[in-house]
Each structure stands twice: as C-alpha cells, then as structure tokens.
C-alpha cells in the first residue's frame, strides 16, 4: 500500500501521537521519526524509506530501511550503522551524512545530523568548572 494511503490511515490516530501541549505542536514517539514531529515527511511508519537514530548504551545506532525490502518484511528490512560512542561529533556527523550524501532521503539530512549531534553532545563529559567561592554575606 502506498505511503500516502498509509499516512491517511495513520494521521488521525496511532499509538505514538503525543499532544501534551494544548494548541501546541503534535509530537510523535515513533522510533523512525527524527525530529519527533507528527507529519508525513517525518513519519517513521508511513514512508518507505525511514531513518531511525537511537542511543544504545555503547553506540549511536542509525537504522534505515533497505531499498529493495518487501513491504511485508519487518526486521530484515532494516540495516544498521553503528557509531562508536566515544567517537566525537565530527566523526559521528561524517558517518551520518554519508547516508544522505548517497541519496537516501536527502530531505532528512538536517534533522538527521541534528539528532546525531544531540546524541553525541550528550556523550561528552561535562567541563570541570572551578568550585564557586562564596561571596558577600555567605563568606
């Protein structure tokens, strides 16, 4: 079934919709949705080609649907790229951008890189700051 038809069936109800903000943006908790926004372009369910970025403990995992996969296959239809957790943002973004550069959903490139860089930034150790000396009354 086409992606358009599936989107029409899924857009009004699906178990991943989050509408917590009144009169606010509609979010989506699907794994294949990069900016977690509920829309056709970013949907991880309706589209044939989807990219999912998750953080397993030891690596950042980019999983994408394979091109020639049957519409009925679930697990064998996905391929994964693992980025080692300690490789910095520059290397992670390079690996992630390769997917878009070879033409796989190039329209998702900015959100894909944003998500990967957000995950990579969370892996960085926080800067050690000098202890704050108490001033004024507290001294």
């Amino acid at each position, binding site marked *: *079934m*086409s*992606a*358009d*038809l*599936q989107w029409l*069936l*899924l857009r009004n*109800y*699906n*178990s*991943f919709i989050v509408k917590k903000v009144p009169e606010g943006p509609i979010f989506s908790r*699907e*794994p294949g949705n990069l900016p977690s926004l509920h829309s056709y372009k970013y949907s991880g*369910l*309706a589209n044939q080609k989807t990219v999912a970025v998750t953080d397993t403990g030891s690596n950042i995992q980019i999983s994408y649907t394979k091109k020639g996969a*049957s*519409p*009925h*296959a*679930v*697990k*064998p239809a996905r391929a994964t790229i693992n980025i080692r957790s300690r490789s910095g943002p520059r290397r992670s973004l390079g690996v992630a951008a390769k997917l878009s550069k070879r033409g796989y959903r190039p329209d998702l490139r900015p959100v894909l890189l944003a998500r990967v860089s957000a995950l990579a930034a969370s892996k960085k150790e926080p800067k050690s700051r000098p202890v704050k000396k108490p001033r004024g009354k507290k001294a």
Partner: protein
Amino acid sequence: MASRPTVNVRSTAGEATSSLPLPAVLTAPIRLDVVQQVHKSIAKNKRQAYAVNVKAGHQTSAESWGTGRAVARIPRVGGSGTHRSGQAAFGNMCRGGRMFAPTKTWRKWHVKVNQNQRRFAVVSALAASALPSLVLARGHRIEQIEEVPLVVSSAVESFAKTKEAVALLKSLNAYPDVLKVSNSRKLRAGKGKLRNRRHRQRRGPLVVYNEDKGIVKAFRNLPGVELVNVRRLNLLQLAPGGHLGRFVIWTEGAFGLLDEVFGTFEKAAVYKKDYLLPTAKISNPDVTRLINSSEIQAVVRPAGPKTQKRPWTQKKNPLTNKAVLFRLNPYAKAFRKQQLEKKAEKPKKVKTAGEAFLKTLFAP
C-alpha cells in the same frame, strides 16, 4: 495482481521452511470509515438492557393542595405523623420523585448492519493486519518480527501445553507483545471494579487456526492472546475499538484457507455464497508514482524556478510614476506624446494692446 507475492511459513522453531502465496483478502481496500461505522454498530450488540423501576417515584398518593395555601402547587404527600407528609412528590425536580423520561427496557439496544458492510469491514481489517506500519501504529510490539503476516506451520494446531506455546512465541519474537499485555494489567477506574470488570489490560496477538487439535487450550491462558477459527473471523477482534491493525498469527492451514473463505476479486468465495472481494475506487493510490507516470508527465508544463524571484522590491504607483505607467500600458506613452504635440500646435494667442489704449498711453 499478476503474480502474488509469497509469504514464508515458519516452523515451530522459527525459521522459514515453505512459502504460500499471499491471499487476495490481504490486498483488499482498507476503508477506515467503513470499519469504524460497522464496529460502532456491532459493538452495541452485546449490550444488556438497563432501566429504572417502572413504579419508581409513583408509589405515593400525593395530590396538589391547589392555590391559596402559600405553597407551590406541586402534588404533595397527604397524611401526617411522618416527615414525608406534605413533601413534594411525582416531579422530576422533587426529592424522591420520578426522573425525567424514565429509561425503558424497550430502547433499541442492537443495531442491524448489512451483511455486505459487515464483510467489507472484516476484509478491510484483515488487509490492514498485513501492513507492518499499521500494526505498529496500533501499539503491538512487533519490531523484532521477521515479517507480517506471520504464518506458522500447521503443527502448532496440535500443541497441548502452554509451555510449547510460549516457546513458539519466543522463537517467533512475538513474545514482547504478550509481555506488553501482562505489564499493562491495572485496576479499572470506577464502578466497573465491582461489576466483574475489575482489571483492564492491552490486547495481544490474535491466533487464527484452521482446526483445533489442542491449540486453543495451549494458548488460551496467555494474557491478551485470543484464538479464533478462520471461518469465524470477528471484526471486534480484528479491529478492537475500531482501530485497524491487530497483530495476527496465522497457522498454515488457516492462511491457505483464506482464499476460499473470502474469495478473490474474480473468484467467488466458497464459504460465503456469491461473495467477491470489494474493489478499490483507485487502483493505484501512490500519488508520487502517479505524478511521475509518463501519462501525466507528457502533458505537464515545464517546472518554474525553484525559488521565485521578486518582480520588484518596491511597488511604484503607475498613476504617479511615468516609467511604471509606460511599462504597464505601452499606449499611454504614445497618447501622452500626442497630447503634448496638440498643445504645442495651438498658436499662442498674443494679446496686443488695443488702439484706444495706446492712444491714451501715449497721449501728450
């Protein structure tokens, strides 16, 4: 549909052994509106009647006191010696009175649905159960499953122990769905707790079999798992709550029988007299492919620039700005020129002084 795609049949250990062609039912049109309407009606058929007591509120012999007694004219209970005497009775606004429009048992509780509509809904729900995105969207945990529809060999139908059933589900990676159900078991909010509806939980996989040689007893104790014979598929189980995409596990025998139970688009069903599958209004629902097809691309005008340039940054008024006026109305230039020439042609009347004036001016 020239050649049917095939679906792998998995053994009880989980690997794919043989394969079966996809039955035509699973490619039928998916009509959410039909399913929702039919589900709404069918769900009403299991209702039990409720009503207030016929005599409620009328078991008094109250009469109105009429006017002149400085009280409202509502019927009041007669007699004395008790608090109830003189109290208002009978009205829906009175304490202890009858309610407005007392509910009756002869309300229409059940809804009749046309047979063809019922079948259309079941067929749509089955087709939706063959699309992994719809099953995922409904909330089933099938990310690790090999393919949808999931078909298992007929050896499952002779399972006798629940242990075997659990082992099968685990080998198929379908067990997370059952776990989801057992983790979601909670006390129901409200009075349903006291009315034999104490807990509520999610729905798990639906197992469809051909012959019950013990499979029902093996699977029925697993939370959330429902079993049904392929000849008696139920919309309330295929689309619970009117939501498409139940996770269905087929046995090989049941899957192969689907073409006989529902027929195809050309061949009538065996188990439903003269029934053919409904055809879709649009045979190709893929908008992108339609746009890129040769028939449409042949008549489409060439695309414009990707980013439109602004024709001007500042709008200038043609009524005051001559250049813009002449750009919009080329004739205006020629017309203006004509006007100017006409004005130049007209001889300038030189007003010479008259005779009488000059005489007076130069008078000695």
